[in-house]
């Protein structure tokens, strides 16, 4: 469903990704983990068609990707600015009109679940509530690919919990694939099917999480520590 083939990405002199190949199939929640600046965000942006590979190819459902892959990809940015002149309800309406696959009833359900006031002004929304709104807008689409860049970062535990619960409740795992970047692994460890570790722009491991526990008797954190150590030595 998502295919990266020998992808390199350079920004000026800095190399963000090197020779990344990935094949991800639907029906899974996949965690992309690594330190800050390791290339997690760039990977998501490449799949969303918001940046373009310097070398190699990126495909979603067999189609080469550019910006307009937005019709098949729902992308949650780590940034959270929306149009300040709209309130929560109007922002949801705007998204519903922009994306043909946007399910307004589902959006309403998620909004209620997240306890967001539809009349709240965007400018006055707390960071936590902006994080929740992002979840509403991203998950309300009946779209094959969902990409979430640091959905939990900088939010307090209550919000993080509501977001994790939102993911469990509203992702349609029969039809969707979800790729989440995070450096807060503990929080979402139990909802991941697969984990991909990335370091300095290279993929250094890709595992089924349950398999990891069966074969190596390790959770994600222990596994990460062990492969990061191995890389250094």
């Amino acid at each position, binding site marked *: 469903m998502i295919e990266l083939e020998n992808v390199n990405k350079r*920004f*000026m002199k800095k190399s963000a990704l090197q020779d990344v190949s990935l094949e991800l199939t639907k029906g899974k929640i996949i965690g992309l983990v690594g330190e800050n600046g390791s290339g997690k965000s760039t990977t998501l*942006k490449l799949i*969303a068609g*918001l*940046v*373009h590979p310097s070398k190699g190819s990126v495909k979603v459902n067999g189609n080469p990707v*550019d*910006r*307009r892959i*937005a*019709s098949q990809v729902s*992308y949650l*940015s780590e*940034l959270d*600015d*929306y*149009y300040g*002149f*709209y309130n929560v309800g109007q922002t949801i309406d*705007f998204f519903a*009109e*922009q*994306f*043909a696959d946007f399910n307004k009833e589902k959006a309403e359900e998620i909004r209620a679940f997240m306890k967001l006031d539809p009349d709240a002004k965007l400018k006055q929304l707390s960071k936590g509530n902006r994080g929740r709104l992002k979840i509403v807008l991203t998950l309300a689409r009946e779209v094959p690919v969902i990409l979430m860049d640091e959905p939990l970062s900088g939010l307090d535990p209550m919000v993080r919990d509501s977001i994790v619960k939102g993911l469990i409740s509203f992702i349609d795992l029969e039809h969707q694939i979800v790729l989440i970047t995070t450096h807060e692994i503990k929080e979402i460890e139990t909802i991941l099917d697969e984990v991909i570790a990335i370091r300095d722009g290279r993929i250094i491991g890709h595992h089924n999480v349950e398999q990891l526990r069966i074969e190596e008797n390790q959770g994600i954190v222990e596994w990460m520590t062990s492969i990061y150590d191995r890389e250094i030595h």
Partner: protein
Amino acid sequence: MNAFASLTKKELRMGMPVFLVPIIIFIVAVAAAAFFGGRSGVAAEAIAAVSVAAVTMQIFYLIYYLNFSLKAEKKKLHLWLHNPLPGYSMLLAKLSAGLISMLATLLITGVTLIISAQSAGFITHLQNDFNLTNIGFFSGLHVVLIAIDLSIYFVFFYMIYLLFNRYFGGFLSFCSTFVLFGVSTYLWGKFSETAIHRSLTSWGEIELNGFVFNRKFENNGFEFFTEFDTVHVFLGSYLFETIIVFILFFAASWMLDRKVEV
């Protein structure tokens, strides 16, 4: 509402302050003109002068409008670009919003001009000599056409600016774009002096006789004026400019879809 209409509505909403500022400035200027002109008994003339200036300046209206709009999006490109609509629709939504705002502004400044001109003393002399309806229509139309024309050049160079932004900082990108703009204007100027350019544009001449003047000129001794009274319009130059603008517009859309990065 379909996606394009909803996007245009968003652009209008986003451009609301940009729409209001010139109108407020115009109202203040008209008030000032009325006050200072009124002291010398030429209030209507002063307002008319302000209105003429305001209407003329609107050839830059869309550049002004789009500059604001695109700058606002540049701060949240991930939001603007994450949209299934093709680039031309996204740019067209901005242009449409700009054009709606411009026509509304043009209506306000234009109507003020007509009303003030009609109560101005000199209008009767002018009306005797000139066909003001023709001139007004011709100028108004061209203000809009030139504004659209310039705005597309602007959008084209703005997309290049966004591309440069991936590689250099904001200031350096601006400078590079500006230099590129200067060089291409210079080269274009050179090209427009060539015979090829002339053969591309100088065809389909339409002569609009008696377009400018109302006064009937006798044949004796007024040949100079008769010559002057004919407006030469070349269909070729309009078509040529239209084609250039289309090419630039689609190049800009292509860059937006394929090259611009968050």
